[in-house]
């Protein structure tokens, strides 16, 4: 009865984790609405500063898709105080590693460097929060770069194109149907005025979270934040509308064929709720059970999909599952797979549905669940090795309207999930009515 051993071990492990989690993180709210979260990590004399704005592609609407991401590019193109190109020069000269990223739910900017430079980060970020120039000349050049980025990441990448198409088909009313980078036609038609309006609307202290992780002293960081951001007025940003997805009523299928494709690929996505959907009708445990379900299928070396489909049945060359409980709007529990030689996408689809059916009938074993839980806790401890990643988790949670403390509570919540709950969420959510299937095949087409 090995699982009893691993379960009691798990209790110890969770205790270790909780001891580590205590009192490292400090939250404060500035008068202008800017939220500051500081996490101490004194292993090296460095710090990462991330500023997160609650705006992303899911804030956008038809015609201006990609505007959040285009604006992210323009944030490096000059303010009233720092001329175009200077921002990156200043950061580089101090040994900084910097960049930015845009998702469906947020836009974030970061610098990682010697901890003494946190003040400079604040100064620069406070400046570009309100003083961006948005020069026409710069924009004309930069939008070409963005189009090249789209070609590189999506148009010339068959599997990425499949993903983009799958989301556009799966979502009917949710803004998640729009790609983060934007539709090419929208980018081509985009004007600097679109960006100015977007900037004015969303870039404000009361729509931002400032995250600092590293070799810093929380009180001193708070004083610095007040010094640099305190004078910026609250803008009373109206939060974005929810625009929820309508209830899907039947399986959708789409095929993408292109002559760029040599290896077929399968995508399957089921509509699933997220933590933000929790209500009196939707208990929280369902979300954590979905997380565990994902781990059982594709978490760690002994997960079911690889074991059954790749190693035993040999139907798949590779296969994986994906689910995120921390998006702003409800999302997809998805599968992606490449068939082994001699097998079709239909074989693969059937095999995945078989695995789902097994989980809908039989709850996972206690031993299997114990393995998953051990890995979840271990992963949380491994996370501590990356300051950037710790900041990423805090920033993501805050930006989608959740509390960063959920990260520390995560282990406990996962621990409470029972085998029967896993079976129940598989039965409730992984159903044909909410499924979208997308297939990538070699063929005609650009």
């Amino acid at each position: 009865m090995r699982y009893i051993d691993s379960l009691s071990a798990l209790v110890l492990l969770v205790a270790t984790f909780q001891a580590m989690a205590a009192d490292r993180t400090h939250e404060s709210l500035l008068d202008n609405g800017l939220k500051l979260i500081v996490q101490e990590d004194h292993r090296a004399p460095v710090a990462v500063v991330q500023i997160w704005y609650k705006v992303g592609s899911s804030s956008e609407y038809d015609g201006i898709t990609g505007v959040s991401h285009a604006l992210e590019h323009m944030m490096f193109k000059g303010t009233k105080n720092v001329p175009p190109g200077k921002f990156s020069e200043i950061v580089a000269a101090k040994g900084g590693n910097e960049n930015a990223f845009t998702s469906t739910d947020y836009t974030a900017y970061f610098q990682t460097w010697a901890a003494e430079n946190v003040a400079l980060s604040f100064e620069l970020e406070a400046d570009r929060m309100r003083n961006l120039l948005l020069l026409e000349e710069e924009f004309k050049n930069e939008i070409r770069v963005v189009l090249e980025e789209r070609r590189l990441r999506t148009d010339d990448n068959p599997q990425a194109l499949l993903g983009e198409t799958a989301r556009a088909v799966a979502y009917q009313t949710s803004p998640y149907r729009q790609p983060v980078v934007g539709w090419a036609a929208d980018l081509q038609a985009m004007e600097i005025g679109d960006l100015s309006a977007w900037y004015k609307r969303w870039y404000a202290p009361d729509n931002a979270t400032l995250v600092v992780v590293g070799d810093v002293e929380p009180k001193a960081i708070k004083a610095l934040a007040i010094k640099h951001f305190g004078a910026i007025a609250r803008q009373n940003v109206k939060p974005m509308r929810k625009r929820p997805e309508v209830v899907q009523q039947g399986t959708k299928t789409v095929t993408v064929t292109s002559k760029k494709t040599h290896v077929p690929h399968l995508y399957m996505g089921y509509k699933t709720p997220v933590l933000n959907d929790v209500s009196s009708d939707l208990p929280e445990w369902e979300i954590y059970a979905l997380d565990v379900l994902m781990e059982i299928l594709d978490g760690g070396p002994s997960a079911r999909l690889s074991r059954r489909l790749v190693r035993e049945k040999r139907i798949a060359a590779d296969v994986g599952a994906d689910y995120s409980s921390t998006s702003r709007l409800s999302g997809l529990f998805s599968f992606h797979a490449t068939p082994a030689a001699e097998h079709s996408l239909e074989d693969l689809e059937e095999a995945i549905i078989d695995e789902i059916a097994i989980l809908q009938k039989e709850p996972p074993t206690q031993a299997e669940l114990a393995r998953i839980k051990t890995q979840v806790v271990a992963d949380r401890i491994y996370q501590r090795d990356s300051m950037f990643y710790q900041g990423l988790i805090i920033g993501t949670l805050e930006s989608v309207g959740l509390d960063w403390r959920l990260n520390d509570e995560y282990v406990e919540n996962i621990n409470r999930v029972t085998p029967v709950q896993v079976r129940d969420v598989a039965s409730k959510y992984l159903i044909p009515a909410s499924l979208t299937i997308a297939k990538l095949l070699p063929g005609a087409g650009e």
Partner: protein
Amino acid sequence: MKTIKLLVCAVAISFIQVAQAIPQIEHWVTENGARVFFVAAPEIPIVDIRFVFSAGSSRDASKPGLANIVSQLVKEGAGDLDTNEFNEQLAQTGAIFSTGALRDMAWISLRSLSEEQYLEPALGLLQSVLSRPRFDNDAFERRRATALISIKRDKQSPGSIASKAFYKAVYGDHPYAVSPSGTQASVASLNIDETVVFRERYYVANNATLAIVGALNKAQAQALAARLSAGLKPGEKPADLKTVSQLVAPIEQRIDHPSIQSHVRIGQPGMRRGDPDYFPLLVGNHVLGGSGLVSILFDEVREKRGLSYSVSSHFSPMAALGPFTASLQTDGSQVDEAISVLRNEIRKFIDDGPKVDALEAAKQNLIGGFPLRISSNSKTVEYLTMIGFYNLPLDYLKTFSTHVEAVSVDDVRSAFTRRLDPDKMVLVVVGKKNSDGG
């Protein structure tokens, strides 16, 4: 914006503070010949262990793809445990286990919790991987089939096609010419016996570097290293790779591909690890195209002309001369313009060297950014492996900033003129060939 200017002027004084952050490297050799490099990192209750062997694709000889398959088979069960049983036990420990192979090296990595209850069984599994890997034919057949699909999938990626063609053209008959993934024909012809022979030849103690970082003291690390390496046969260190020949003439290759963008690679053999020109080439290339968002190439290609999302140049120092590569991707209609900008800037840089202020800025970036290179256990373990595998001095990290600081404009110009020849470079372009034959 007075304050910003002030802060910018107060440049890299972080130099002195950096010195304190440099990890203390302990080094010893195990009884049967494995070279061990250890850094104690007590802050987080985890341990990283990384074995590297000179067992990358440059040891493939007439069997491209062999080293890659061998490194995958290392994950397919050990001792009495088949793959599924092995993976279940591994999952119970919470450890992360990975293997892989590039051109120079193959690695076996384990990240585990340091608490004995978890570390002990994880080490037991690693030990059996090193001493009694299964190499079952069944797993081999499956891995080979997957490898063939992956080679086929690379044909979907203009970037992969460009890289493979680039190495082939730069390296001719040198082992670096071949892609670690091999070719359809070579991988299809592999058999299980060859993988076993390869492993027995190269996965041996005298060919092993072992890096350990984590919440252990030196005695614990020594016991751990002795225990793990004991499972390896002593074996022999393989001979050095043959010398890379310089190109005698420029090579230009245009490969037709249906992508919208054309992918461009320009370059030639560059430098090796421990190269006497390492620092001038590193710092110089930082100015040319090596530094993230600030470099000549980034400025000329992206910032001024909007021609490419990513553009860079880099030296990849390896055991033998690794390549110097400049790369970009751009819409096929403007690829000739992009190539000409890239070529001009490389030529200009070789002829004129860096401007004084640009060189200073690059040095500040490298020195100021140094603490970031060793700010986590996973980064430190990578550095240890690199120092060990390439026989770099143990004070490599300690002296890094001093070496960077010492590089002058003349050093860079001299190194670039001696090491790169813009008239004998490889140019690879993958994309739609223009209908007008351009």
